[in-house]
């Protein structure tokens, strides 16, 4: 396991009886990255997070978090975690919940007051710090959960669907908090099915489906143009057939879409079209949105 990696897993698998929750997860998250972990409901995202924390035990595979074995006390000392099912002691106030987590996280007592004050201000709960959690709305509880995850200035923050209960203002706040964490050099593992959220804040993304990573890379790598649209005239049937070796063709004379083409081969495609007697008026790279890429991957 490399020291520059915050998370590294190899063939990490989890089965519940005959049900496969995670089927061989292999991924690497570099220190300081904001890493998006995308997938549809039931893809195994939360299971993966629980395995990283040791809240569930792996069936097979290996992994390390912050250079320590999965679920080890040493790793958990440096991790902040917002669960998907966020729930905190309803009989305590927010300040008390945060103090409890300061204590469990081993934060020096002299630092508690400042730490708690900063966190409350960051998540926007400073004016409700002494109210009982039981009186909080769901969104406020999720803000508190985010605050709990920030306690102790962890090296790695695991956020499992961190905006599921938040309004647009809250979602914006969370994005700002994540950007702030990145500036501090904190690694953020963002588990989400909200593609726009991931697209806006993540450096790298893994797309998971049915317990497996189906695509992984930086957003640029995942979304770079891999299709071109040609405005073309005089393309014969034979000429069109000759272009099929560049990718999946859609359309024909007039407008032709070529999917799955290596961007390096576009000039060659144009040359072949001209050689076949066609006139090419324009060549437009087609960029996919993360949503289109996501849906295409899951449709495969």
């Amino acid at each position, binding site marked *: 396991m490399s020291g520059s990696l915050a998370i590294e897993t190899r063939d990490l698998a989890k089965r519940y009886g005959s049900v496969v929750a995670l089927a061989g997860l292999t991924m690497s998250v570099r220190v300081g990255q904001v890493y998006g972990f995308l997938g549809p409901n039931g893809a195994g995202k939360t299971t993966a997070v*629980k395995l990283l*924390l040791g*809240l*569930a*035990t792996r069936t097979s595979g290996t992994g390390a978090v912050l250079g320590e074995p999965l679920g080890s*006390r*040493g790793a*958990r*000392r440096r*991790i902040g*975690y*917002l*669960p998907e*099912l*966020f*729930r*905190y*002691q309803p*009989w*305590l106030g927010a300040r008390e919940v945060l103090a*409890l*987590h300061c*204590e*469990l*996280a*081993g934060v020096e007592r002299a630092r508690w007051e400042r730490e708690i004050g900063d966190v409350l201000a960051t998540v926007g709960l400073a004016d409700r710090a002494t109210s009982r959690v039981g009186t909080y709305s769901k969104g406020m509880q999720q803000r508190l*959960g985010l605050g*709990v995850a920030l306690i102790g200035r962890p090296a790695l923050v695991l956020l499992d669907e961190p905006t599921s209960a938040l309004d647009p203002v809250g979602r914006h706040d969370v994005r700002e908090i994540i950007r702030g964490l990145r500036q501090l050099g904190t690694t953020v593992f963002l588990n989400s099915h909200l593609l726009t959220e991931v697209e806006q804040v993540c450096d790298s993304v893994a797309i998971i489906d049915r317990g497996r990573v189906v695509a992984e890379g930086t957003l640029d790598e995942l979304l770079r143009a891999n299709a071109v649209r040609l405005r073309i005239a005089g393309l014969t049937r034979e000429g069109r057939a000759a272009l099929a070796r560049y990718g999946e063709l859609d359309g024909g004379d007039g407008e032709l879409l070529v999917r799955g083409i290596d961007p390096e081969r576009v000039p060659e495609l144009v040359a072949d079209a001209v050689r076949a007697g066609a006139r090419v008026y324009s060549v437009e790279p087609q960029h996919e949105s993360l949503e289109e890429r996501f849906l295409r991957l899951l449709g495969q």
Partner: protein
Amino acid sequence: MPSLVVAREILREASRRKLLFALVALTLVVIALTVWGFSRIADLRTGGQPLPPVQQTAITSQLLILVMFMFSQAVMLSSAFVAAPAISAEVESGISLALLARPIARAEYVLGKWLGLVALLAGYGIGAGVVELLAVRAVTGYAPPHPIEFLAFVLGEGAVIITLALALSTRLAGIVGGVVAVIASGIAWIGGIVEGVGTAFANDTITHVGTATKLILPTDGLWRGAVWSLEPAAVIAGFANAGPAAAGNPFFAATPPPSAYLVWSVAWIAGVLALAVWSFRAREV
């Protein structure tokens, strides 16, 4: 120490959720009623004459055993229903997710829960028991012969039930664990009577069945110790005249439990607590 933090949170929850208030308020009502009842013993007449002091003492001691039986049942029921959801409710609600993601071992979490519950039991049990005994002494002048041992035996019963319910809480929903713990303590009580009946009729098979239940769940064995602690020597001597038949009475004990049984009870608690830790270590949350 993470265990002490978890234990403190048990006490804070009991206080914030008004469990302590409810227990104290109801206990004070019960103490007031029973003390009033004890105060009326001096007014009892037979043939127009007050009862002789020996008879008054005997009645007071027997009534105190009945009241304390109710007290021990209240302790056991409260212990079962407070301990049974102590872990399962946090797992079901999701509260445990954020807690167990912290650098705290599962063993520390379970041990902390147990310590908090036992501290709650001790605080309530000693407080309520001492107030009841002092109040009875104030109105009747009667003090049981072994009050400290009595409290220790009742707290031991509570600790056994807390440990059982907590172990069940690592796997079962709170309501299920509570019901199982209460029924188990009822079976153990019946087992104690069965043992007494076996002894009274010199039937070894029945006696062994009863003994086995006292070993499987040592609540009734400890209850017999509590009864013995409350009996004046004259009452023990009186029952002894009844011969082996007295053994069938669940409110009488001629002798305290042997030391080996007390050692067994402590080992039982340690063993079931270890089982709870083992069970929760393997539990996925």
